[in-house]
């Protein structure tokens, strides 16, 4: 909008006040929303802690100690206690965030690209292609998400890549569906007809007219899936299907510490508390983003 205004011939007199662009407005609304800003700050802290785990961690995440097993919170040199092999909990929680965040975010990004593309193609071309794509998606929809994730990663076997593949397949259907719905709506609008009438090809219409209108809602929806993905990803590790020991990952830590609930219950629940905190902040931030972007789903 501002770009076209700049191209207009310069008019005499005072410059007209430029009305702020869409993203400026979204940014301002976000800044005025304390809950969303608070959540984004917490998420930023979690991400930074995970990225700089090497620098921040007080100990080696793999260094076990038979005599320092399962020490309580506040133990000297181990502020958050130690796990069942005597490894420092604070260190492992910092490193664990890396795997948990990667496993939570990467599948949603993958599914955003794959599902978004499928949905836009199905919605734009309609007809048989739409039928073929959407009926296949319906079959994937016939499974509750946890079950689908467990089925695929159960068949593929444990491991980080397999878990990410499984979760990607879980999140493709909802994103494809939302992209298809929005694309179908936008396709019926007058400006698309106008573009077609003026001779624009399919690719141009998709790129110039559809994408800007479809990406917003799809992106907001994808952001709401991140919290689900983080819980599911850690759930897979909890079942022994995700990251393999001795690597640190919150879900896996929760699983191995499960036997310790009679000895150090409050140390054992720490990884889960972090999953909860991350997931609740993702949910609130996603809600805030949706309100700020004025997207209705």
């Amino acid at each position, binding site marked *: 909008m501002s770009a076209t205004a700049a191209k207009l011939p310069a008019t005499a007199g005072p410059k007209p006040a430029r009305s702020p662009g869409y993203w400026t407005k979204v940014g301002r609304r976000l800044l005025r929303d304390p809950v969303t800003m608070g959540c984004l700050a917490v998420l930023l802290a979690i991400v930074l802690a995970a990225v700089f785990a090497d620098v921040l961690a007080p100990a080696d995440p793999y260094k076990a100690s038979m005599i320092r097993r399962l020490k309580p919170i506040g133990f000297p040199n181990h502020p958050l206690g130690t796990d069942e092999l005597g490894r420092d909990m604070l260190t492992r929680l910092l490193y664990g965030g890396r795997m948990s965040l990667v496993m939570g975010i990467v599948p949603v990004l993958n599914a955003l690209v794959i599902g978004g593309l499928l949905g836009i193609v199905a919605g734009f071309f309609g007809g048989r292609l739409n039928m073929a794509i959407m*009926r*296949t998606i*319906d*079959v*994937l929809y*016939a*499974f*509750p*998400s*946890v*079950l689908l994730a*467990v*089925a*695929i990663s*159960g*068949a*593929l*076997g444990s491991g980080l890549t397999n878990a990410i593949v499984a979760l990607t397949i879980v999140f493709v259907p909802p994103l494809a569906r939302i992209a298809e719905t929005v694309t179908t709506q936008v396709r019926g609008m007058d400006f698309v007809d106008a573009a077609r009438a003026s001779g624009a090809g399919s690719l141009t219409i998709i790129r110039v007219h559809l994408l800007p209108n479809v990406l917003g809602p799809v992106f907001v929806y994808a952001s709401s899936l991140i*919290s689900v993905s983080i*819980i599911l990803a*850690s*759930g897979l590790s*909890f*079942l*022994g*299907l995700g990251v393999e020991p001795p690597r640190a990952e919150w*879900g896996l830590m*929760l699983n191995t510490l*499960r036997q310790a*609930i*009679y000895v150090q*219950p*409050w140390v*054992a*629940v720490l*990884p*889960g*508390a972090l*999953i*909860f905190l991350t*997931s*609740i902040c*993702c*949910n*609130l931030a996603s809600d805030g983003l949706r309100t700020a972007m004025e997207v209705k789903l």
Partner: protein
Amino acid sequence: MFAYILRRILYIVPIALGVTLLVFLLVHIAPGDPLNAVVGPDAPAEVVEQLRRSYGFDRPLPIQYLIYLGNVLSGDLGQSVATGRPVIADLGRALGNTLILSVGAAIVGFSSGILLGALAGWHRGGLVDRLATLLTLIGVSVPHYWLGMVLVIVMAVELNVLPAMGMAPGGATGWAFTGTHLAHAVLPVLTMSVIPMGIVARSVRATVADVLHQEFVQALRAKGLGRGPVLRHVVRNVAPTVVSVLGLQFGYLLGGSILIETVFSWPGTGFLLNEAIFKRDLPLLQGTILMLGLFFVLLNLVVDIAQAALDPRMRRT
């Protein structure tokens, strides 16, 4: 109505076929030779070849699928590689045990969710509304396997008032309506009910608020109807949406119970899945996934029909 039901049934046939195809393919996306789980790596080649033929792995994929489909339709889900027992035998009991948890969690979660959501939607912005919003947020954000652990720590480890795991003392796998069995079910049922409670409360709140804004409600109030009769009209309009949410949530309870069953060592389908994964028992994995998937498809059909029965407008779509 009859035509509608028929149409819905016809619609789920391809979906159900798709489910069997996907479950069939699970074995083939699995890395390595599916026979590796049956025979050791140093088995003689002729034995492996013979087994391959007896399992039908030497035929082309489409033929294998048709054979699989035929077996499934005649109720044969294959044999467990680990135990040699027919999969369907273990599955029946496990499904029953999972249903106990799911039905229990549905009763607790749905009733509290509906009540909370209705109150919140009726008094928007009030204290109940804020409480409902908070509980919804917690319900959708909490890793329920972790919540289960926390409940075990509080109720079993610290307070010692409820059993921590299993279905009954001594690793029993059969259900009975006795005090001990019920006590064992309390924690897993409560843990499982948190997610549907949050989601049901959220959708009931939104639907109630939406219906209350419609003109016919104003008209009803304007003509002098009291709270009770207005409420009756609102319920009638909210019901179809809520029924569909409840149906879906019940399906998610059944399919999502694996994590909760793992936390509480509950001998249901989740426990079977866990075992299948660890022993790489693919027939057992396939059978369990197939059963839960088909159950979910059937549940969706029932929901659609119930919705159409409650709301005649649905039948036209």
